[in-house]
C-alpha cells in the first residue's frame, strides 16, 4: 500500500496544483515533494533488507488481457525511489529562483513526472513498466520544450523521437514475451505479463539474441550508451536547469535500472551473447565522452559529456555480470544522481549571476564567492571519485567488477578517473580561479535558498563516501537475486 501511496501522491498533488497560482504553487509543490520524501524515508526505515519484494500491491488492471497493476519494492527499487524522492524537492527548490511563465504548470509537470519515475522503479508487470516509462517521458518533453532555450523545439523533438522509437522496440519485445507466457493466475486471460512470468520463460538462445536488442534499444537511448547518445548533449544544454537535473539525475537511471531488472534476468542468453559488444560500446562511451568533455567551452555541455562518460562506466559494471559490478552500479546510480544534480545546479547558479556559461568568459570568481566555490569543489571531487566521497565507492566497485570480468577492459575503463580529473579540474581552475574576468568584482555568493539545495547534497556526498554500507546493504539481496536469475540458465 505504501508503494501505491508513493505513486499516487505526486500525481494527486500535481492535479491539485492547478488551484494554486504563482508563488503559492512553488510552496505547495515543494511541500508535496517533502511529504513524498517523508514517505520514501519511512519506507526505507521499515524496509527489511533480508526479504525480497515488500510493500507489494497487486490489482487486476486489464483483466481480459492478464495485465495487472502490480507494484512492489526490493532494495534496488528502494534505492532509486529514495533517490527520486530526495532529488525532486531539491530540483523544485532550485527552480524557485527562476521566474517562469505558468509556473504552477511547471511544478505540476515535475510532480507528474515523479509518479512516472517511481512507477518505473516499482512496477512488477511489464506493461505497467512500459506505461510508467512513457508517463515519465511526456512531462519532460514539455518541461524541456516549453521552458527551454532558443533551439528547444527542434532539439526536444529529436529527444522525444529517439526515446519513443526506442520504447516502441521495447514494447514489441514485451509483446513477444507476453505471448510466450502461460495463462494468468486468475485464469481469465491466456497470457500474463508479470515480471516473474518473464523470469521463468526459457526461450531458445537464437530468440533471445534478437529479443535482447528490442528491449535494450529503449534502455540504450535513455542512458544513453554510445552511439545512441546524440540527443543527450543538445537536450541537456537546451533544457532549463531543473529539467536537465531531472534528465541526468533520475531519468538516466531508468535505463540502468531497466537493464538490471528487465534485461539481464529476462534474456540472459542474449545478454551473454552480446555482453562483449555492449562492454566495448560502453568503454568507447567512457573514453569518447571524456575526451570530448575536455574540449568543451560551455559548462553545461561539459557536464553533459562528463555524464555520458560516467554512465558508460555504470553500464560496463552492469554488463560485467559480477556481484561487485552490479552493486557498484546501484550505489553509483545514487552517487551520480547527487553529484550531477549538484553540478548542474552550480552551473545554473553561475549562469544566473553572470549571464554566460562559456568557460573563456568566466574566471576568478572564487574571491567573492567562497561558499559557492567550496560547494562546487566538493561536488566536483565527488564526481572525480576522490576517496571518501560518494563517487569513489561506486567507481571503485564498478572498476573492480569490470576488472574481474576482464582486466584489460578494467584498465581502459579506469581512464575515466584520469580524464574526469583532467576536464573537471581544468574547468574549475578556469571558471573559479584563474585571471579575473568582468564578473569577478560583481558576482554575489550563494543565497540561503541555494545553500538549502546544496547542503543536503554535500551531506550525502560524504555520507555515501564514508558509510556506503547504509545504502549498499539495501541492494545486496536484489543484486544477488538478479544474478541468480542470470546464472540459472
Amino acid at each position: 500500500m505504501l508503494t501505491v501511496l508513493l505513486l499516487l501522491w505526486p500525481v494527486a498533488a500535481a492535479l491539485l496544483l492547478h488551484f494554486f497560482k504563482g508563488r503559492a504553487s512553488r510552496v505547495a509543490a515543494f511541500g508535496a515533494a517533502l511529504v513524498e520524501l517523508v514517505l520514501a524515508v519511512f519506507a526505507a526505515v521499515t524496509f527489511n533488507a533480508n526479504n525480497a519484494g515488500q510493500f507489494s500491491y497487486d490489482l487486476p488492471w486489464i483483466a481480459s488481457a492478464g495485465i495487472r497493476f502490480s507494484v512492489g519494492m526490493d532494495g534496488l527499487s528502494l534505492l532509486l525511489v529514495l533517490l527520486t524522492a530526495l532529488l525532486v524537492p531539491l530540483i523544485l527548490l532550485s527552480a524557485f529562483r527562476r521566474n517562469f511563465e505558468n509556473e504552477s504548470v511547471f511544478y505540476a509537470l515535475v510532480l507528474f513526472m515523479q509518479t512516472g519515475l517511481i512507477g518505473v522503479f516499482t512496477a512488477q508487470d511489464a506493461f505497467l513498466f512500459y506505461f510508467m516509462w512513457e508517463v515519465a517521458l511526456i512531462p519532460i518533453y514539455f518541461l524541456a520544450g516549453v521552458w527551454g532555450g532558443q533551439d528547444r523545439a527542434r532539439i526536444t523533438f529529436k529527444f522525444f523521437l529517439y526515446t519513443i522509437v526506442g520504447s516502441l522496440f521495447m514494447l514489441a519485445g514485451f509483446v513477444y514475451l507476453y505471448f510466450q507466457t502461460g495463462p494468468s493466475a486468475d485464469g481469465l486471460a491466456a497470457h500474463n505479463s508479470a515480471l516473474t512470468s518473464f523470469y521463468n520463460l526459457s526461450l531458445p538462445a537464437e530468440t533471445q539474441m534478437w529479443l535482447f536488442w528490442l528491449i535494450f534499444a529503449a534502455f540504450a537511448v535513455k542512458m544513453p550508451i554510445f552511439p545512441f547518445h546524440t540527443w543527450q548533449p543538445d537536450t541537456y544544454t537546451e533544457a532549463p536547469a531543473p529539467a536537465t537535473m531531472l534528465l541526468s539525475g533520475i531519468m538516466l537511471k531508468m535505463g540502468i535500472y531497466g537493464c538490471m531488472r528487465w534485461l539481464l534476468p529476462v534474456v540472459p542468453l542474449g545478454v551473454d551473447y552480446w555482453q562483449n559488444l555492449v562492454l566495448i560500446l560502453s568503454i568507447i562511451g567512457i573514453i569518447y565522452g571524456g575526451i570530448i568533455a575536455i574540449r568543451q567551452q560551455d559548462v553545461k555541455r561539459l557536464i553533459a559529456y562528463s555524464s555520458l562518460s560516467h554512465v558508460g562506466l555504470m553500464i560496463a559494471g552492469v554488463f560485467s555480470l559480477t556481484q561487485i559490478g552490479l552493486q557498484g552500479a546501484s550505489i553509483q546510480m545514487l552517487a551520480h544522481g547527487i553529484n550531477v544534480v549538484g553540478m548542474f545546479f552550480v552551473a545554473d547558479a553561475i549562469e544566473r549571476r553572470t549571464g554566460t556559461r562559456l568557460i573563456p568568459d568566466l574566471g576568478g570568481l572564487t574571491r567573492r564567492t567562497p561558499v559557492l566555490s567550496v560547494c562546487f569543489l566538493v561536488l566536483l571531487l565527488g564526481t572525480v571519485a576522490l576517496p571518501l566521497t560518494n563517487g569513489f565507492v561506486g567507481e571503485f566497485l564498478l572498476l573492480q567488477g569490470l576488472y574481474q570480468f576482464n582486466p584489460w577492459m578494467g584498465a581502459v575503463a579506469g581512464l575515466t578517473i584520469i580524464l574526469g580529473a583532467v576536464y573537471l579540474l581544468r574547468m574549475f581552475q578556469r571558471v573559479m580561479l584563474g585571471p579575473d574576468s568582468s564578473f569577478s568584482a560583481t558576482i554575489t555568493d550563494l543565497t540561503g535558498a541555494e545553500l538549502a539545495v546544496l547542503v543536503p547534497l554535500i551531506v550525502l556526498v560524504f555520507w555515501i563516501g564514508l558509510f556506503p554500507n547504509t545504502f549498499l546493504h539495501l541492494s545486496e539481496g536484489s543484486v544477488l537475486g538478479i544474478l541468480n536469475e542470470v546464472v540459472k540458465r
Partner: protein
Amino acid sequence: MNSIILLSVLGLGNLFLGFRRSNRLLLPAAMLMLGLVLTVNFLDWGSGPQSFFSGMLVVNDFSVAFTGIVVLTALVLIPFSQKYVHDGEANLAEYYSLLLFSLVGAIMLVSYNHLLMLFLGIEILSVAMYVLAGSDKRNLRSNEAALKYFLMGAFFTGVLLFGMALVYGATGTFVLEDIRFAVQNPVNDSLTPMLYIGMLLMLVGIGFKVSAAPFHFWTPDVYEGTPTFFAAFMSTVVKTAGFAAFLKLLVQAFPAASAQGLWLPTLTAMCVLTLLIGNVGAVTQTSAKRMLAYSSVSHAGYLLVALVAFNGELEGPSANGIFFYSLAYSVATVAAFAVLKLVADQRQREDYNGLNGLARTNPLLAFVMTVAMLSLAGIPLTGGFFGKFFVFSAAVENGYIGLVVFAVVMSMVSIYYYLRPIIAMYMRPADDTTAAPIPVTTFQSGALLLLALLTVVLGVLPGLVSGIL
C-alpha cells in the same frame, strides 16, 4: 432497435422544433435526444440476439456496443456546432435532423444481418453526409467537396451494389448466415468466380466509405472543403460504423477458408497501402485539417490490421480491438477537430502556424489538443495507446508479425506530424493574427474537458470497456 425508432421519431420531431430557428432551443434539444438514445440503447445490452424485420436486423451486444460509440460521438460533437446560429442559418434544424437520421444509417450498419440493410444503412448515412458536406453554401470549396463526395460516393455505391448482386447471383441469398453456408458448400462450381468477384467489389465499396487506400483519394479534398464540424462527423461515425459493418461481413458471410484465401491478401495489401499513404501523406501536409484527413486514412489502416487479424468470431481480440480503437479514435478525433474548428473560426486559417501560441492564449484548448494528438499518436496514458495495443496484439496472436512491425514503423512516422501542432501551440510564439484569445463558451469548455478526460480514462483504465464484447 429502440435506438433506431427513437432516432427516427426524434429526428422528425426536431424538424418541428426547428420552426423556432433558435440554437438556444435546438442544441440542448438535440443533445437531450442523443442522451436519451444513448441510454435507451444500453437497455438492449446482454439481452441476447434479437432479430427484427424477419431477421434482416439483429441486435446483439456487438451492435449495442458500436451503436454506443456512434451515438456518443455525435453527442460530444454537437456542442461545437454553435457557430451556425451566429451566421443566421435558416436551416438549423435540418442539420440536427440530418445528423440524427444519419445515425440511423450507422446503427443499421452495425446491426445488419441482410445485405439489403447494409446497403440501406450505407445510403442513409452517405446521403446525409453528401448534404452536410455542402452545407456551407456560400463557400466554393464546400460545394466542390459535396460534389466530389457525392459523385465518388455514388459511383462506389454502384460498385457495392454490383458486388451484392453478384453475391446474390452466386448464392441466391442476401442473409449473412446463408451466404456463409453457400460459400462453404458450393452447389455449382461455375458460380464461384462470380461469388468472389462480388465479394471483392463489396470490399471495394466499403473500403471507399472508410477511406482505405487505394480508395481514399477523396478524403483530403472532401475534408478540407467540408465544414470542420461535419468533417469530424465523417471521420468518426462513418468510419466506426463502416468498420463494424466490415467485420460483420467478413465474420458472418465470408469466414470460409476458400473465401479468406482471396480477401485476406486483398485486405492485407489495402492495409499496407493505407498505412503508407495515410502516414506519409500526413507528413507532407502544411494544413492541420488536411493532416487530420490523412491521419484519418492512416487510422483506417490500423483498423484494417485488426480486420486482417480476424479469428472468425464476433467476440474476441479482433472485434475488441476494433471496438476499443474506434472508441479511442473517435473521442480523440472529435477533440482535435473541435479545437481546430474553434481556432479556425476565429483566426481564419487552418495551417499549423494558425495554432501558434495557443498555449498562452487558450491553455485549455492547447491541453485538449495535446491530449488528442498524443492519443492519435498512440502514446501511453491515452486511449490511443491501448487501442493500438489491442489491435496489434490481436494481430501478433494470429501470427501477422510482419504486418505489425510495419504498422509500428508507420506509427513512429506518425509521431512526427502529431507533434507538430503541439510544437506550434507550446513552443512557438504567437504573431499578430494569433495573439488574441479565442472565445470559448463554458459549455464547449466542459465538452472539451470531458473529451480529454475520456481519453485519459481510456488510457489509464482500459479494462472498463475492453473485453466487454
